């Protein structure tokens, strides 16, 4: 709309300039075919005084959208015919009328300025377009940019192209040209076919309407900032070009992970493990810590057994201090006699001994490097004699199949084991194998008779 206003203003200024120039009448035969804008300079008109008081820009009606073109709109290359002089019109027609004329008469004119204002001033007649007839003589000036949206500027001689009939026929087909050029009509059709709800901006479209004024733009920007501040960032990444989406509330029990405490993390990173904190154990660590007492008893020292060293080895001792000669065989090792258990263990050991009933002192521990000492025969105080290998075992065999083993019980046993033996069974055959032999015939006559009897049933 602004562009149209600007163009009209420029056109108005141009008209005002041209009005000051001397006017000449151009003969029609010399310019039998001219561009449509040519009549602007062909008519003498009184100096135009813009009716500022009568009409303002807001009152002027401009049809921003051209009407839909006729269905099959061929490319019209029309022969220019000078507009017939209107009855009331003269060469010095009003510039207003010329300005208000539709420079593109190929389209059906909308309500004209005069009709809107109910002005009796008759608009200048506009020649109707008719399809090009190739049979006609088209040797004239042809406006090629007839259907362009922009209003043509004043055409110079270079812009005017003379075409013959054959050249006109070589022009592209009218339908394709119209379809390609008339984009506004498509948009109009789309708007007409769209439902009334489509007036609102689609959700998926992120474009907003262009603000008409700066104040409006500022107001929209402020609203946009307010909306973005109050809107939550959706968890779900919206698909591209899908526009803003409403954040879906998460179900109960499910929440986004909490943001970590940055201070805690920084503190954990800053404090080294072996630093100040490592020296101060935590409460959990203290609960599991056991303070160990220092070792009691004689301190162990490694002493070089000089007494057991043979003289030959003493002489062969190396001079280097780091080398140590292994002790001889006579050093058997062992435990120190005065090695006593700790007091806590002693109490438990005494309690155990009381339970067992053995008050005797335990035998001294033996080293693994020594032979085990012979244990004395303990006095049997219990009622059960331990199993001792009998010193006398006899086997009485009353038969070949039955044997009895007699074990002499130890004399100190109070209860001798009761031995049970199976009763004696005399030798008897337990199995009998009977060899069944076919009766061998004693005489040849018997065998012959038996053979003759075969198969006789």
């Amino acid at each position, binding site marked *: 709309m602004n562009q149209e206003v600007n163009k009209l203003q420029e056109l108005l200024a141009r008209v005002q300039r041209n009005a000051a120039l001397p006017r000449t009448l151009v003969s029609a035969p010399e310019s039998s075919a001219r561009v449509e804008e040519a009549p602007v300079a062909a008519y003498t008109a009184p100096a135009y005084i813009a009716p500022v008081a009568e009409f303002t820009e807001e009152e002027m009606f401009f049809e921003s959208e051209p009407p839909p073109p006729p269905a099959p709109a061929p490319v019209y290359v029309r022969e220019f015919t000078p507009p017939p002089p209107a009855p009331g019109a003269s060469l010095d027609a009003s510039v207003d009328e010329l300005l208000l004329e539709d420079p593109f008469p190929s389209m059906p004119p909308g309500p004209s300025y005069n009709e809107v204002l109910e002005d009796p001033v008759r608009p200048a007649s506009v020649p109707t377009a008719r399809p090009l007839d190739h049979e006609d003589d088209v040797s004239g000036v042809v406006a090629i940019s007839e259907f362009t949206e922009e209003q043509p500027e004043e055409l110079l001689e270079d812009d005017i192209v003379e075409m013959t009939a054959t050249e006109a026929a070589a022009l592209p087909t009218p339908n394709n040209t119209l379809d390609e050029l008339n984009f506004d009509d498509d948009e109009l059709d789309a708007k007409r076919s769209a439902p009334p709800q489509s007036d609102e901006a689609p959700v998926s479209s992120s474009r907003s309407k262009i603000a008409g004024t700066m104040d409006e733009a500022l107001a929209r920007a402020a609203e946009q900032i307010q909306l973005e501040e109050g809107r939550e960032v959706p968890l779900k990444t919206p698909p591209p070009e899908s526009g803003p989406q409403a954040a879906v509330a998460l179900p109960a029990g499910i929440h986004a992970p909490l943001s970590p405490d940055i201070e805690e993390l920084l503190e954990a990173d800053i404090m080294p493990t072996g630093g100040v904190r490592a020296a101060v154990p935590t409460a959990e660590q203290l609960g599991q810590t056991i303070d160990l007492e220092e070792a009691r008893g004689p301190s162990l020292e490694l002493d070089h057994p000089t007494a057991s060293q043979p003289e030959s080895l003493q002489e062969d001792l190396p001079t280097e201090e780091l080398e140590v000669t292994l002790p001889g065989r006579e050093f058997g090792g062992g435990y120190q006699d005065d090695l006593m258990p700790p007091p806590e263990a002693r109490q438990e050991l005494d309690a155990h001994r009381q339970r067992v009933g053995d008050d005797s002192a335990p035998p001294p521990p033996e080293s693994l490097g020594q032979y085990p000492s012979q244990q004395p025969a303990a006095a049997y105080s219990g009622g059960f004699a331990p199993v001792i290998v009998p010193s006398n075992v006899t086997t009485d065999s009353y038969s070949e199949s039955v044997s009895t083993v007699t074990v002499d019980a130890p004399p100190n046993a109070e209860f001798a084991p009761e031995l049970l033996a199976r009763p004696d069974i005399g030798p008897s055959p337990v199995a009998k194998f009977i060899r069944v032999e*076919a009766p*061998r*015939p*004693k*005489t*040849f*006559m018997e*065998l*012959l*008779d*038996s*053979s*003759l*009897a*075969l*198969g*006789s*049933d």
Partner: protein
Amino acid sequence: MSLNFDPSYALEFDFGRGQIRMANASERVIVPCDALLALCQGASEDAVRDFGRRLGTEAGRVMNDRLGEAWQASLETVLEHLGGELALMGLGSLGLERWGQALVLSFSHSPLGWAGDLLLGSVLEGAMQRSFGRDTVAVKLMRDDQKVRFLLAGHAGASKASSWLAEGVPWGDVLSRLATRGVS
């Protein structure tokens, strides 16, 4: 009775007369084996059987003359004497097999070959008839290069065994079948 067979002086050749005599028997004629086979092949089956039974009867008679009471003779005695007489005839070595209750006699090293089997079987039938007074049928069970076996059975058993053998039943199975049927 354990009289051994003694072939000494069993044959007597009288060159002056040009005769060959067998002890306690009539004159013998020594003929080529192939000529005898040609004669048997040219004769009918009944003629061959009759010829063979005559030979067997002569052998049985001689055995009886030697043994006296042949019906009391054991297996070994009969085999020894009967086999000796057939050996003097040059028919081969007689053998005896006992398969359960079946009596099987065999000839080994017979010069007649497979062509003289019918003749040999008929000889056995004639010997049994003459020695023990039993009509027997000698059924040939098998034959190989060296030995031919004959089952001595009655007419019923012989017919069954012959039919089974004709069906391809092995001769061992034939004897088993005969023994089974005989027991049941």
